[in-house]
């Protein structure tokens, strides 16, 4: 079963200690919530994420990957995830360590995600350039999600080929900082990239593949064939 997009929301703020955004998670099988955070503060601890909650609970959330840079700069991109979220309309709340100068949050709901091994190997990159790009190892049926903090001069952004924009919002108008997020269907290798307008830019990017759930119909068919040929005898329960 291919990982399938359900819905997404995003919000940005300046000089905040937390951001809240409401999302409706539909009642689909094998649900997963992924949160992409883009942040900057001149004190790293103040942009560090202290908690992520959904529907009032922090249970089940895990930090997937965080990148801070480029170099000595303190731009931050971070991914957080939770398997099997409640199928409700509720708030995702991202709380940081202090008053964070720039904070953007993208939340994406997907389904048909493997509930045991939900994620592939997360990757990250950072640079002073106009071309955020990471290569993600994935497979057919997976869904690759990436999140970028981009700042600098006029960072309007264009998403790479094959990707669907999930967030492209201003975090801080004067500083021209943006939260970018996209998804792309899985393949053995997927390149998640953006093109930022102008030069004198800085960015940090994180990405990961949401792994597809097993197709139980295919598994049952394969086991049925094996059983018919005398290979194995047994019953599959879900």
């Amino acid at each position, binding site marked *: 079963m291919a990982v399938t997009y359900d819905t997404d929301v995003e919000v940005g703020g300046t000089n905040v200690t937390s*951001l*809240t*955004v*409401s999302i409706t998670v539909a009642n689909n099988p094998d649900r997963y919530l992924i949160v992409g955070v883009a942040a900057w503060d001149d004190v790293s601890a103040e942009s560090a994420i202290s908690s992520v909650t959904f529907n009032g609970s922090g249970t089940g959330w895990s930090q997937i990957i965080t990148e801070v840079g480029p170099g000595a700069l303190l731009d931050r991109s971070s991914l957080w995830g939770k398997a099997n979220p409640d199928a409700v309309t509720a708030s995702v709340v991202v709380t940081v360590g202090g008053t964070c100068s*720039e904070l953007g949050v993208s939340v994406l709901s997907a389904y048909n995600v493997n509930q045991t091994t939900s994620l592939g190997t997360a990757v990250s990159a950072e640079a002073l350039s106009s071309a955020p790009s990471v290569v993600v190892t994935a497979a057919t049926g997976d869904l690759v999600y990436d999140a970028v903090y981009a700042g600098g001069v006029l960072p309007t952004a264009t998403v790479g080929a094959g990707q669907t924009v999930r967030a492209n919002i201003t975090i801080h*108008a004067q500083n021209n900082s943006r939260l970018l997020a996209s998804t792309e269907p899985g393949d053995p290798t997927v390149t998640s990239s953006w093109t930022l307008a102008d030069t004198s830019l800085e960015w940090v990017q994180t990405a990961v593949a949401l792994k597809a759930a097993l197709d139980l119909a295919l598994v049952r068919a394969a086991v049925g064939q094996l059983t018919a040929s005398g290979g194995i005898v047994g019953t599959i329960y879900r």
Partner: protein
Amino acid sequence: MAVLVNHSPLTIAVGAMAFGPVVVPNSLTTLDIRLARFTTATPLFWPLDTTTIAVSVEMSYDGGQTFRLLCGMTVAGGLATEKDGSEAAETTLHFTAQRQPNRRLRLDMEVKGSVLVSELTIEAR
């Protein structure tokens, strides 16, 4: 762009307060909520980092009969700095809302610590 609320003075005692509802023009989908902060030029605004506010943004799509939460933020007062080192004059919340007629925006605000003095601006694009 439309300025729906322009530097409206706010004085909020400790506790909860609702602001609005404000009519949001149908054609505009990107909204900014801005609260004025303490700077050396505006010393009366929100000087204490122990004064906090939780803002919940609610939108109505039926002319104000029912509202649902869109997003929100929590913020502490005191001096904050921008990326270029200058004093931050505002806290902002930036979000989008689906285009639909009969929209109304309402803010629920809860202040803790001490009375909050600021200015509120709401813009839509």
